[in-house]
């Protein structure tokens, strides 16, 4: 039976169990990620991190989860109340929906019922995750607008622009995977990686996906919508209590989702990694074992998220947009053309490999020749008013600049003599300061 047939065969109770487990994964992973992130960042910065609640502070996120909802809720008077209440909900729900198409494992038996560890296997599974992430942004944008104050609005605007531009790059990076796997269904994409994972077959796609996934989830170094040094707290400045907790939940669940999606698309999904897959005729790739590999790969990507946050400074907004539109999008477009060309040549039976190499080489030479013909950028040397600049591009002061004379320095021996009166014992008035005089 195929994956879709197995899933269609599920009884209602099994579907309910799967749905409940998927609902729990989000909050549990969030609680885990909070302590994981704080501990890892602390480890990177040579400090202990949270260490008060529980052994090694491991219960810190439980304490946080209890504390947050019970805090006082403050709603600004200028807030648009309906949208203000709606925004956190809108940002949480789509991130939970996206779990439904992630394949956690192959065929297993749950209480004697053969099924696949996945809720649904839609023929357009990859699009479901893209759709969910594009809906989740509404939460952030609306939160920014509904708060009725300036900084959240700026955060919301930034978020809208950011997510739209990085979603394009993300969608284009997925196209390569789809061209190779011939399917949009997440389960089929994992199955298609049996002969080789896509992260090394499609390196440019993988790199672009990794960058755009960080941009899409508003995480450092791309956390411009909540840049605390510029926008206080960004879109969630005016949120407190449970509503803030929901944004928190949405952000971390989104991180988990994009990591799981990256695992599915590029890291072979639930399949066992190479040396392990050799053990016992790939025994560890059957039954419940693959869940372990899947979660391991996801954790690896989540660690990358934390690592980036601990290492890189936040980008400036225009640099960030330039990276998205002028680097990621054109590179992925060119890469898609290359992939399509390679596949077209491969499908042609009359063309041998050596012919492809020869023609590819000739094409490369022509490209290099064309690149040589492009004239260099001409310096604006003809401008007579041009200020002379140093090698580093810094302007130098004008030639007629008057440099102030340095103050006269007393010689060392003079200074010693002048300092002498300080050694006079206290109580004996030698100096005539105005304060003493007034007394």
């Amino acid at each position, binding site marked *: 039976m195929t994956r*879709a047939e197995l*899933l*269609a065969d599920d009884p209602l109770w099994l579907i309910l169990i799967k749905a409940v487990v998927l609902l729990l994964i989000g909050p549990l992973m969030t609680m885990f990620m909070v302590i994981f992130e704080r501990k890892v960042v602390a480890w990177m910065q040579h400090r202990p991190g949270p260490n008060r609640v529980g052994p090694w502070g491991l219960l810190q996120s439980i304490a946080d989860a209890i504390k947050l909802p019970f805090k006082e809720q403050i709603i600004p008077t200028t807030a*648009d109340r*309906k*949208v203000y209440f709606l925004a956190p909900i809108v940002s949480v729900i789509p991130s939970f929906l996206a779990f439904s198409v992630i394949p956690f494992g192959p065929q297993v038996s749950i209480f004697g019922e053969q099924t696949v560890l996945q809720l*649904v*296997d*839609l*023929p*357009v599974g990859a*699009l*479901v995750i*893209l*759709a969910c992430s*594009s*809906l989740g*942004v*509404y939460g952030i*944008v*609306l939160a*920014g*607008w509904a708060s*009725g104050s300036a900084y959240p*609005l700026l955060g*919301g*605007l930034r978020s*809208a*622009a950011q*997510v*739209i531009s990085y*979603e394009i790059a993300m969608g284009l990076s997925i196209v390569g995977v789809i061209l190779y796997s*011939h*399917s*949009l*269904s997440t389960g089929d994409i994992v199955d298609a990686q049996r002969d080789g994972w896509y992260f090394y077959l499609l390196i440019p796609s993988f790199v672009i996906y990794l960058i755009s996934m960080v941009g899409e989830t508003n995480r450092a170094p791309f956390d411009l919508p909540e840049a605390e040094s510029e926008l206080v707290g960004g879109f969630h400045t005016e949120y407190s209590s449970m509503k803030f907790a929901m944004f928190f939940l949405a952000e971390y669940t989104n991180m988990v989702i994009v990591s799981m999606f990256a695992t599915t698309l590029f890291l072979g999904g639930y399949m066992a990694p190479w040396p392990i897959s050799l053990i016992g005729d790939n025994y560890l790739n059957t039954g419940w074992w693959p869940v372990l590999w899947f979660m391991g790969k996801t954790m690896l990507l989540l660690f990358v998220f934390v690592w980036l946050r601990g290492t890189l400074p936040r980008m400036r907004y225009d640099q960030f947009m330039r990276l998205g539109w002028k680097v990621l999008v054109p590179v992925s477009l060119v890469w898609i053309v290359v992939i399509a060309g390679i596949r077209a040549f491969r499908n042609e039976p009359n063309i041998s490999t050596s012919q492809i190499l020869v023609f590819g080489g000739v094409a490369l030479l022509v490209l290099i020749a064309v690149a040589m013909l492009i004239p260099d950028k001409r310096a604006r040397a003809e401008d007579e*008013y*041009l*200020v002379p600049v140093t090698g580093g591009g810094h*302007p*130098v*002061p*004008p030639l007629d600049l008057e440099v102030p004379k340095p103050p006269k320095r007393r010689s060392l021996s003079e200074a010693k003599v002048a300092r002498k009166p300080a050694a006079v014992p206290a109580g004996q008035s030698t100096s005539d300061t*105005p*304060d003493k*005089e*007034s*007394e």
Partner: protein
Amino acid sequence: MSAVLAAAAAEVSTGEAIAFWVLGPVALAGALGMIFARNAVHSALWLVLTMLSLGVMYMVQQAPFLGFVQIIVYTGAVMMLFLFVLMLVGRDSSDSVVEVLRGQRLWATVLGIGIAGLIVGAVSRSLTDVPVENLQQQNAGGANVNNLGKSIFTEYLFPFELTSALLITAAMGAMVLGYLNRHEKGMKRTQKELVEARFRGEYERPSPLPGPGVFATANSVATPALLPDGSVAPESLSRLIDSTASETFSDEIKSVAGTEPGPDAHALTPSTKDTSTTDTKNTEDTEETR
């Protein structure tokens, strides 16, 4: 979902009927809300609701690709850009009631009625004439996307390319109309150009004005900055801040305190004023302590 899709025959299945009767009113409510909402952002949100329920309807009617693309493109990208613009406009701004184009309302009414007539005509025809088509053949083996792609790039290639050409033309037009050459005269200068112009002497001074001083006793912007020799940097005092009144009334303060500089043999030398101010300060301090 695939079970639902497979079961959907020419006749409307129970699942589809339920979905329709849930989604239909929601879509309608969204459309009405969009028209009657006072606030432009609320209006856009109602429209999002309508688009979402349309997307789900496509999915129910065996077109999952179309449904999700509807959500990604229309709800995710197009409406997001709408919201972006509305948020920039500001929440309290209302529509202008002044007609900029002459006869705009008249033509809007005429054309609106015309479009409504066309839509009603099309819908009423689809209720009677159009045969019910089952998409099972097109969706065989989960190949909805493959068949869609095949027909776009074979049968409907020309319309598809035409549509993309139209979109690119629109985008190019917007870019041409909205493009401002920053290097032209009268445009805002870049940071580098500004620095060069400053050093060229086009501005009063090459560096920005000194900021206010920050002392342990005050962090007010009215606090003057001190120059290396200890005197007050006059440029650091803001002309806009009230507290500079103390500077304005400094002569009166001096006359009341009786600390005006008396007749001075060195009055013509420029440095007298500076020393007198520092003296005043000292004497004021002493008077307070008394």
